[in-house]
């Protein structure tokens, strides 16, 4: 069961409305993605907490429908465009 990049992005945005989301389909099979999620709401949270927020947004799909989602999360760099 694959998921589209748009679907992933939409689910993340529901939970993290200000997120800047970049998704790359690594294998072109709708099953292996790399996502970068940048949100002000991540500031002050550990990487584990940031990833947990994204995993929760994807409602149990990671590890199931989505075999691989390489994830990088961060708060925006000071001075970077929002």
């Amino acid at each position, binding site marked *: 069961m694959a998921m589209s990049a748009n679907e992933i992005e939409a689910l993340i945005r529901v939970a993290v409305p200000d997120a800047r989301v970049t998704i790359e389909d690594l294998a072109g099979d709708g099953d292996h993605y790399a996502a970068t999620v940048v949100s002000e709401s991540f500031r002050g949270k550990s990487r*584990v907490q940031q990833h947990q927020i994204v995993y929760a947004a994807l409602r149990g799909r990671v590890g199931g429908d989505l075999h691989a989602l390489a994830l990088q999360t961060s708060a925006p760099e000071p001075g970077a465009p929002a």
Partner: protein
Amino acid sequence: MTNPVFERIQSDITENPVFLYMKGNAMFPQCGFSARVVQILTHLGVPFKTANVLEDAELREGIKQFSNWPTVPQLYIKGEFIGGCDIVTEMFQSGELASTLAEKGIPHEASA
């Protein structure tokens, strides 16, 4: 702590300073993400123990609930959940993993 697997996980991560839940074992990882974490730990010269979730369905489900983390591998250092492959890789590249090990008093080779 109702799930009996949780007790086992708790004792694994308490008794072993560096513990990795993975697919396969350190000699024969059965997943690229697990292999990468093994490679990083080996590169840093860190002694670590592993558990193979593919051999134990209860552990495979249990560890996901225990850590509130949907995927394997999962790395624990001194009982603290460090993260999965992405976080471990990022921390290794930034040198943060070596400093975490040093802070926690775990012997390892100085990273290059």
